[in-house]
């Protein structure tokens, strides 16, 4: 059947991507990676996945565009405002008790989630004692995160989200607008380390008080989700906090026992003290 050949081609393509460039998508959730690969194949002008594989193996310049199809997730500043409100009201009081803090935005993509946290921490007076780690496997996305420039037409949504999240300042304090772009202030990046890190293949690199990893694990299959969540668990300090996406349910994870619910509706968990 034609269908089966296509699935085989996809498996081989992902194997080639891994063997040649060490990007490992082999255990991503198959349905959405297939959809993204189809989109990439069409837009990059290849007739088949085998042809795309051939191109990829011989022309390293194709790697970066392909990765952009496979990994970029557009987000918003203060996406799901109720999540940030819960961080502000339920998590920040705990974080205040620490003299220094490490926060990890795992899978930060183009930086929207990062800037939301930095602004929130500044408003709460915690920024000066905090080190933020913003990691992703996509270099282009990381560069965009580090630039902090977003289309001006998205600012209205960001501003509304920020207000709903309980924002204590005006979002316009943090960016300057010019030529249809909003450029976020470089002072927001003073306490941020941007780094290439993979939840699939890399290891623990620091002890965190809070990890925000929303709508990243949904792209992994069950086994890989357990691997990534294990890594996050091992990265958290005792009683450290973890924020997942609103539809990511801990109940299907192997490591569920290692966490307790902190804010159930917002999928904010706390590492058990045991």
């Amino acid at each position, binding site marked *: 059947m034609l269908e089966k050949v296509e699935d085989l081609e996809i498996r081989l393509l992902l194997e080639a991507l891994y063997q040649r460039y060490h990007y490992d998508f082999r255990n991503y*959730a198959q*349905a*959405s990676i297939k*959809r993204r690969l189809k989109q990439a194949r069409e837009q990059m002008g290849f007739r088949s996945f085998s042809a795309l594989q051939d191109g990829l193996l011989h022309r390293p310049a194709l790697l970066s565009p392909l990765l952009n199809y496979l990994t970029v*997730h557009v987000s918003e500043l203060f996406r799901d405002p109720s999540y940030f409100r819960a961080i502000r009201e339920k998590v920040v009081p705990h974080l205040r008790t620490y003299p220094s803090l490490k926060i990890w935005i795992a899978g930060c993509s183009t930086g929207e989630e990062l800037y939301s946290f930095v602004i929130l921490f500044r408003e709460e007076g915690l920024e000066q004692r905090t080190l933020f780690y913003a990691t992703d496997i996509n270099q282009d996305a990381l560069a965009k995160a580090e630039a902090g420039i977003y289309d001006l037409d998205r600012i209205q949504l960001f501003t509304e989200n920020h207000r709903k999240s309980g924002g204590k300042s005006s979002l316009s304090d943090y960016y300057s607008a010019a030529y249809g772009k909003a450029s976020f202030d470089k002072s927001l990046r003073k306490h941020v380390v941007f780094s290439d890190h993979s939840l699939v293949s890399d290891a623990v690199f620091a002890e965190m008080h809070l990890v925000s990893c929303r709508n990243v694990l949904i792209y992994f*299959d*069950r086994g890989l989700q357990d691997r990534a969540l294990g890594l996050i668990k091992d990265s958290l300090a005792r009683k450290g906090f973890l924020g997942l996406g*609103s*539809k*990511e349910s801990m109940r299907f994870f192997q490591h569920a026992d290692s966490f307790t619910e902190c804010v159930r509706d917002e999928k904010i968990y706390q590492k058990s003290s045991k």
Partner: protein
Amino acid sequence: MNGAKAEAVVIGASAGATEALSAILPLLPADYALPVMIVVHVPPDRKSVLAELLQAKCRLEVHEAADKEPIGRGTAYFAPPDYHLLVERNKCLSLSNDDPVFYSRPSIDVLFESAADAYGPSLIGIVLTGANQDAAKGLRAVVEAGGTAIVQSPEGAYASAMPEAAIAECPGARVLSLSEIAAYLQEIEKA
């Protein structure tokens, strides 16, 4: 019709969805053998009450899908607002934040195409009332994988554009009224 035994049902609906689904889902028994996956176009920015509303009317278990939830019998799964719902080949559900399709997230095409991949000829795809083009391509994927295509008859639909587009894309689809669709689903389970 094809020879394969039906294993799952996917339903797509947009404008007028609540009434249409209310004419189908409450008629299915509590232990209905085929899992039912549903995408209804809902606004991204608020909680959807659709699953709760239908749960109150149904003997089936009805809820919004969680990521990597195993698919089981006697259950209707709704795509949550602002997420695509997909079926994995190992018969669990996954969610994605990928770009909207035809301005919609969730998208009917995304569910139907992934379910066609996972279930092939054992899938029943049903397109109900709606005012846009989402679903036509997805239903075609169901047909191409050997599955069964059913479309609500446009004359009886609250909004006819979506069923009409689906019929144009899949001329072999069975065109049925809501009560005929409900009867078909009850019957096919026993087949």
